[in-house]
């Protein structure tokens, strides 16, 4: 059992089972819609977790990459006549490229300084989406044409649930692969001691960049999915609060745990829905729950539960 818990692949299998069985118990399309959104956010958080939970580098700007993915599938088909699915790939590549170019200089920074620099990057990207109204529709945003793949139209919660669910499983599998590889060991080493990693031959700057670029691509794909699913994109998609949301999901669920990030995403998507019963006090309840989790499960929900289960 312990061996099983330690294997990142066990998580992938568990996740695949959940994704496959969930539609059987969800009573209506509304719930399937919520589940699809959970999968989309979880995908972004799996990426963030590679950067924050494994490599130990903070980013408060990942909504920027999320926004690049989202606007790519809006602008591509609308203004340039590029099919949505090609636009999605272009968006993911563009986000990766942006992360590569910006990551080089800013990943030299550490801790709070890196947080502020990534924050600035996120704000900057959101600003571009707000101001380039001719392309993006400005603050009001723009509609996103439905995804069409070789004449097959993708729409509705059911289809999007399956697409985002399967993508999440693949995303988790890729993350598990990475963690179990030399790259993953280098990232985890950097987290604990950059100095020791360096004297062992790890090119610290390169690996931080690798984690930054990969997590940006995850965020961009998730952003594209959300935009295609919603049929609308606004600068809020790329906004500061969204970045904070990603980080909160990762921390709440458990940094350094793939499944933790997914649980964190589910919690932050579902809780506001559930807490509507508190009406005006909804946000107070949400804030209190988050504080309680951090006080009583400081390592995050999933790692804390795993540790308890082991004893």
């Amino acid at each position, binding site marked *: 059992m312990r061996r099983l818990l330690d294997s990142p692949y066990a998580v992938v299998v568990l996740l695949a089972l959940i994704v496959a069985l969930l539609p059987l118990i969800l009573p209506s399309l509304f719930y399937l819609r919520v589940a699809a959104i959970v999968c989309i956010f979880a995908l972004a958080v799996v990426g963030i977790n590679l950067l924050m939970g494994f490599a130990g580098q903070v980013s408060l700007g990942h909504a920027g990459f999320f926004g690049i993915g989202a606007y790519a599938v809006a602008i591509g088909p609308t203004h340039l006549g590029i099919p949505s699915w090609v636009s999605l790939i272009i968006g993911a590549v563009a986000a990766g490229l942006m992360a590569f170019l910006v990551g080089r200089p800013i990943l030299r920074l550490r801790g709070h300084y890196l947080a502020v620099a990534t924050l600035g990057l996120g704000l900057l990207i959101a600003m571009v989406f707000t101001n380039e109204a001719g392309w993006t529709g400005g603050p009001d945003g723009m509609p996103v044409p439905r995804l069409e793949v070789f004449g097959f139209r993708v729409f509705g919660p059911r289809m999007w649930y399956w697409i985002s669910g399967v993508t999440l499983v693949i995303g988790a599998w*890729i993350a598990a*692969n*990475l963690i*179990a*590889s*030399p*790259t*993953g*060991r*280098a990232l*985890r*080493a950097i*987290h*604990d*001691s950059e*100095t*020791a*990693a*360096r*004297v*062992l*031959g*790890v*090119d*610290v700057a390169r690996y931080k960049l*690798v984690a930054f670029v*990969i997590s940006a691509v995850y965020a961009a794909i998730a952003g594209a999915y959300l935009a295609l699913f919603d049929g609308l994109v606004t600068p809020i998609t790329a906004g500061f609060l969204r970045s904070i949301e990603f980080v909160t999901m990762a921390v709440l669920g458990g940094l*350094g745990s793939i499944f933790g990030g997914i649980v964190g995403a589910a919690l932050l998507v579902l809780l506001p829905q559930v807490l509507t019963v508190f009406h005006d006090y909804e946000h107070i309840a949400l804030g209190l729950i988050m504080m309680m989790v951090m006080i009583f499960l400081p390592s995050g929900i999933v790692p804390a539960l795993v540790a308890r289960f082991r004893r």
Partner: protein
Amino acid sequence: MLAASNISISFGGLNALSNVSLKVETGEIFAIIGPNGAGKTTLFNIISGLYAPSSGRTTLNGEDVTGLAPHLLARRGLSRTFQNLQIFFRMSAAENVMVGRHLHEQRNVIAHLFTLPSVLKQNRVTREKAEELMAFVGLRDMTNRPAGTLPYGALRRLEIARALATEPKVLLLDEPAAGCNPVETAEIDDVIQKIAARGVTVVLVEHDMKLVMKISHRIHVLDQGRTIAEGTAAEVRANEAVIEAYLGKHGQREAARA
């Protein structure tokens, strides 16, 4: 094999090292000693590329490597351990050593993302090598434990195994026996001699005089950032300047016993 010539560095006006030169021959065990604050660790940090000296040069195998980044020095066959342990505490003991195999692994990130069969095979090879090295330093039965749960003396040896995993030609050991009890010190003494027997050049900074006198071929003595003596254990022990500036009365007695 390894040489430093006229190394000087100052921190905020304090001359931590002035004009220190040393030359380490292939396969020898070379010790750097000196009282607290003599500049031993600073010298190590310069040799291993963590600090750049204000002046002076370091060479490895005849090539100028002054100011070269640590990961590039590792490629040229220099690795080290740390006085204040730098363990990867979130990883298992074996994984710590596996990180040391980094330079001997394929580092193609795309292959890693999709776990191509070659990656699986390589992971297996890396793990075997790590387990072999852990056995070499006497940690055979601790491989799967989280690094944080290892006793102190074991962590010291884990760092040595990790540095050895890079297959260094020169290994720098920064106080390998610091904080160890006599039994642990004896174990580390044994490990260092085994490493030297493999043909690895060992440079160590150490406070434990007994250990230094016993295993070192040559000893370099620093005091307040300056070289005051260099020679074999017997020569250093008999050196007036060393006795006066460093060993003192207490050290004299200890040295006599060693």
